[in-house]
Each structure stands twice: as structure tokens, then as C-alpha cells.
């Protein structure tokens, strides 16, 4: 068996691939070829059927009923729960907060991650040390992160405002002011996840064939040009992966804002209540309207899918336009 595989020709994506896939018709049984793909993905779907599909269907069923968390199923109400929820001012507040925190966390996070990864991809001394150091925050449990940061961000007794005071700044009203509270929450998220995304980018960068860079160097491309013409297009699957997972995770943000104060309801004016917190408050809070909570869950699901698709389209466009440029070189 040989691993000699010449450097991949720069190819227009997708097109030449198709015939290759058909090429798998060797002596091995047809069934092996036909069934294996399904067999290999089956563990996920089997498990999903038990732990995912039922909850999903259950939620859908609940969302069209008048359903008290404890009291259980009531009358069928059709879309009424959805209508009720959308009309609540609090729902709009929650949407605003979620998007604000999402933008404040995911955008800087992805940009920082790709930047740091590019730096780490260089020929550094003590590589292992730097790489592990960057990932360090990820080992701190979210609960612990919240505990630590809630002490750092305390309005009067917190470290950050204390430090700001020494240079005659602040105090910043971390809890009262909506934007400040979003920044504080986003910084918890960024703290824990930037290093994680950095390493994912780094792994992908290492997989980029070095020959491409050599060729680029010969052609006299600058480092920056190399980055945008080779690295970014080659990272496309990874960028798509990170953008989609960050979108999903970001729009579902729950733990950090919930633990940002001791009441866990998102502030006195719900200034940092996110959609999942709203969902939780509807279902588990005082009202215990499981039906409305389920409706919010489905609305959120649809929003995530739409935003995810938009992000996917944008990301694909950006990185493939880069790829074309690279190809034309």
C-alpha cells in the first residue's frame, strides 16, 4: 500500500470529485459498498432517534397545546402559543440581547482565533507551551468561569472596577447598563472559547500542504497575500464549521448570562435575558407554561437555522472567492 500521493492539483472544488466516488467498485462485495456508508452513520442516527428525535417531536407536540409543566397537557391551541410569545415585549428584548451578546462574542472570537492560530502556525520556539497555554481556559468549567468572572465584574467590589478606579476611570455599571452587561457576558464566552477555536484553526492550517506556500513564495506573494490567497480558502471547511457551531452555540447561550447574577433571570429590566433564558423562565419559572416555552424553543430553532444558512452562504462565498483568486494566480 502506498501513500505516495502527489500534491493535489489546484482544482475547482467539487467537479472532478464526483467520478472518483463512483470509482469504488472493486472486487469487494457490492453490499459492502452500498451499505457501509449507511452503517457508519447509523450510530449517530440510532442514538439521535432515542435521545434527540423523541424530545424534538415531544416539544413540537407540547408547543401546540396549553401545557403546564407540572399539570401536564391541556387543550389543543394550535398556533396560539407562538402568537402569544411573539407579541410579548420581553421576547423582543430577549432577541435583542441574544443577538447583541452573540455578535459581541462570536465575531471577535473567530477573528482572534484565526489570527492567533496564524501566529501559532509560525515556526515558534516552545510550540507546545504556547498551544497548550492558549487552550488553558477551556479546561475551566463554565460554572467556575461564571463564579470567577462574577467576582471580577462585581459593580462595587469587583477587581475590574477597582483597577479602573486606580486610573480614575469607571466605575462601569456592569449589571445596570445593557451594553456593558453584554460585554461582560461576551467576555466570559470569549475567554473560554477563543483558545478552543484557535486550536481548531491551527489544526486545519497544519493540514494545508506546505508546497502551496513554497510555490507562493517563489511567485513573490507577501505573507498577507499568502494568508488570504492560500490559508483562508484552504480553511474553508473549518471556517464553515466554526461559524456554524459558533452560531448555534452563540444563539443558545444560557449558562453565562444565567449565572451573571444570583437571581438568574437576566437583570431587573431583563437587560441581559437571552432567548433560552426566556424559554426557561416561561417553562420553569413562575408561569410554568411548558407550551409557550416549547413554542419559543421552536422559534429559536428556526432562527438558528436561518442565521446558520445565511452565515453558511456568506462564509462559502467569502472563502471560495478567495479560492478563485488563488486559483487564477
Amino acid at each position, binding site marked *: 500500500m502506498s501513500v505516495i500521493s502527489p500534491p493535489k492539483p489546484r482544482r475547482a472544488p467539487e467537479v472532478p470529485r464526483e467520478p472518483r466516488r463512483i470509482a469504488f467498485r472493486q472486487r469487494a462485495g457490492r453490499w459492502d459498498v452500498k451499505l457501509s456508508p449507511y452503517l457508519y452513520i447509523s450510530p449517530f442516527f440510532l442514538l439521535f432517534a432515542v435521545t434527540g428525535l423523541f424530545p424534538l417531536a415531544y416539544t413540537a407536540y407540547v408547543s401546540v397545546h396549553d401545557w403546564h409543566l*407540572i399539570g401536564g397537557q391541556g387543550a389543543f391551541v394550535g398556533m396560539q402559543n407562538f402568537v402569544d410569545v411573539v407579541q410579548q415585549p420581553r421576547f423582543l428584548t430577549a432577541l435583542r440581547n441574544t443577538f447583541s451578546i452573540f455578535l459581541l462574542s462570536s465575531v471577535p472570537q473567530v477573528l482572534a482565533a484565526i489570527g492567533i492560530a496564524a501566529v501559532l502556525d509560525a515556526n515558534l520556539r516552545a510550540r507546545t507551551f504556547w498551544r497548550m497555554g492558549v487552550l488553558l481556559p477551556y479546561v475551566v468549567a463554565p460554572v467556575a468561569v461564571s463564579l470567577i468572572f462574577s467576582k471580577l465584574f462585581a459593580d462595587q467590589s469587583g477587581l475590574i472596577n477597582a483597577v479602573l478606579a486606580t486610573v480614575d476611570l469607571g466605575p462601569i455599571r456592569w449589571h*445596570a447598563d445593557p451594553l456593558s452587561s453584554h460585554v461582560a457576558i461576551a467576555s466570559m464566552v470569549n475567554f473560554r472559547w477563543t483558545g478552543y477555536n484557535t486550536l481548531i484553526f491551527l489544526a486545519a492550517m497544519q493540514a494545508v500542504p506546505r508546497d502551496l506556500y513554497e510555490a507562493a513564495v517563489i511567485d513573490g506573494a507577501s505573507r498577507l497575500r499568502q494568508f488570504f490567497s492560500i490559508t483562508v480558502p484552504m480553511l474553508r471547511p473549518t471556517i464553515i464549521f466554526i461559524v456554524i457551531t459558533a452560531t448555534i452555540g452563540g444563539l443558545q447561550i444560557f449558562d453565562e448570562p444565567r449565572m451573571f447574577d444570583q437571581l438568574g433571570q437576566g437583570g*431587573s429590566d431583563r437587560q441581559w435575558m437571552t432567548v433560552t433564558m426566556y424559554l426557561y423562565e416561561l417553562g420553569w*419559572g413562575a408561569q410554568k407554561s411548558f407550551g409557550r416555552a416549547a413554542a419559543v424553543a421552536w422559534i429559536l430553532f428556526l432562527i438558528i437555522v436561518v442565521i446558520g444558512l445565511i452565515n453558511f452562504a456568506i462564509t462559502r462565498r467569502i472563502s471560495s472567492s478567495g479560492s478563485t483568486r488563488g486559483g487564477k494566480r
Partner: protein
Amino acid sequence: MRKTTSKTWALMAGATGIALLATACGGGDTEADAGEGSSTGGSGDEQITLTVATFNEFGYEELLDEYEELNPNITVEHKKAATSDEARDNLNTRLAAGSGLSDIEAVEVDWLSELMQYSDMFVDLSDPEVEDRWLEWKTAAATTEDGTLIGYGTDIGPEAVCYRSDLFAAAGLPTDREEVAALLEGDWDHYFEVGKQFVANSDAAWFDSAGATYQGMINQVENAYEEDDGTVIGIDHDTVKDIYGDVLTASVDDELSAHLLQWSDDWAAGFQSGAFATQLCPGWMLGVIEGNAAGVTGWDVADVFPGGGGNWGGSYLTVPAQSEHPEEAKALAAWLTAPEQQVKAFQSKGTFPSQVEALDSPELLGTTEEFFNNAPTGEILAKRAEAITATPFKGPNYFPIHTTVSDALTRVDVDQTDDAASSWEKALDAYESLGLS
């Protein structure tokens, strides 16, 4: 002791395609019989495991060991949650799923009200033997209209006033706890008046927050948000509006509040920096102050509460109907909430007993707290418990409604993003969206 029901087996057999399993477990479709058969017996030598779910500090650790010794056939498993919120999430999830609850579930009075309407999910614990065990209002809150008792009272939170005698002295107020009691004796206006006198001569505030003060005041109103039959009154009426206005005038205009949201990190730090001089103080608050104010001297507790007596907090032990051993669970709950045991819990963790007899117990009355200048806390709290007269009605909608007002207070007092009027408008909106009226 958990039985694997035949239903589960069938499910697994179906999933794995091994039909033979069905014969392996014999019994047929007698799941229900098996479940009940083992539970109602109650007597005899059968080994039984009871699970008890509590949260925070109940002081039950040693008591449960003692119970196991007294009842060799019973093993008790103690499941503890850190906070009452976590315990509530857990309880609600399991009630919604219809399984997985412990044989005894501790329930705080704050969320008892939302469970009362589902009393059929709990075992009726009423029993002539324990009928007069608790203070009347304690039992009343856990009794449904048709007389079902869903929980045995554990502790209560009779409120006194904790104060910093050193700050009092510096501001020219008396420091001795009897004199302070005499000084503060009266209604809330009087309490605020003394506060104004204090802040005029001190850098510290008079109390921690508007929210905590409102809590103390509204807990003396019989029907703040709901009528006794559960009819919603709401917040847009004079009783609530007056208290709201008074508290905010005192907190903001008269600068009596330290603007610290209760339980926040800033609040905890406020005990160290001496941010406020008094704290409304149910029995369990003593432990909170002692922890947060560690190293601070001067805290004391006075046998007085503005506007008469008041209760804040306290819990119940319930037996969910799901329990496989309801009789044994009931027996354990009855034993744990007997006066003797609750006095021990008080000595261990300071949870003040809700049992009539316990209030006369020499052990309880003899308890003093070194941190609070050796105050006879047992005696003071017992007197405060007797002073409780008003028992606020808390129906299923009490807490959603209450939250709309407490949020409004926080916006003005702590966040300072609104004034009293604009914040009240927001409270009305929030109340409106509850869809209760």
C-alpha cells in the same frame, strides 16, 4: 431496591430484538401490582431504602444516621442540592416527567404555593397524631381547601433586626440590644425615621436594599396580590403602591439604602465594608451574616421587628405520590419534623423550628450566638415567632406578581436606571404580560 419493571424489559427486548428476555423476567404485565405491593405493607423486616432530597442547610445529616440506627431495616439516602433554585428545577423536571422523585422532597415555602394546586401529586400527610404539632399558620399554608396536608413543616424564618452596634454607637444611637429593641419598636415609618437620624450622623446606610425592605413589609399584608380564594388583585392598588412609594422614598430620597441587591457579591462584600447598619433578620440569616461578616465585630440582634412580627422563608417535607414507600416516607418525615429533632437541627445549623413545643424547649431557649455578642438568639427568635400574626396568602400567582414589583424596586434602588414613576410603569407592563387579569 429499584425494580426493573417488565415494561422496561419489553422496551429493551424490542430494541435489541431478543424476544427471549420477555420470558426471563417472568411476572408478565404486573408492573403496577409489583410497585404497589411492596410499598403499602410498611411493616416487617423488608429492607427499604428511602431517599430524602434537601437543599442548602437542613441540619439533617446526623439525624438521618440516628434514624437508620433506630430502624435497622431502613437505609436513608440523602440527596442534597446546593441551592433552593436548583432543588426547585430538579423537582419541577421530575414532576413534569412523572418519575424520579425522592421519597421525601423538601420544598421551600416560596415554591410551595405553585405546588398546592397539584396536591394530588403528593401524599396526603394529614394525621391526627401530628395535627397540632406546628404553628397554626405554618400548617395552614400547606393545607388545601379540602383539607389535604401536602407537607410537614420543618423550619420557619421569624424576623428580628440585626444591627451593627459599633456603627450605632458612632452615630449616637443606643447599642444595648434591649435599648435598640425599644428604639425601633413601632411601625415602618418609625424605622425609617430612626434611619434618617442614623444616616445624618454616619457614612453607612441604614439598610441594605429597597427590595429586602419591601419583602419585610409586604409579608405583613394578608392579601397583597391575591384574595384568599386565589382571585388575582394584582399590583395596581393602594396597598402595594403605598408600600412601593414608601420604600423608595426611604431608600432613594432619604438615602437610607446601601443600594446592594441582596445575595449579590457586592452585597456580601458590604458586610465587610460596613455598608449598612441594620439587616432584617430571619433566623437563618444569622448564619449568612456570620459567614459574610467574618472578622467584623459589632453585629448584634434585637428582639424587635417594624410593624409587628413577620416570617421570611422556611420549608416543608413532602412525600410525592410517585414514592414506592409512601408509608415509610411519611413516618420518616414525621420523625424528622418532630420537635426534638428540629431542635437538634436548630442547634446544628440554626434552622428555627416551626413546632409549637420546640418553642418552649430549654435547649432552644438556651442557645446563644457568640458572633452576635452572645445574644440569646433562641429566646429572641422564639419571641419573634410568637409575634407573627399576619399570615400572607400566597397563591400560585404570588411569585410572578411579586417579581414584577421587586424588579421595579431594583431598577430604581440598585441599577438606578429608572425613577420610581417610570419603573412602576414598567412593572405594570410586566404584570400585564403575565396575562392574569
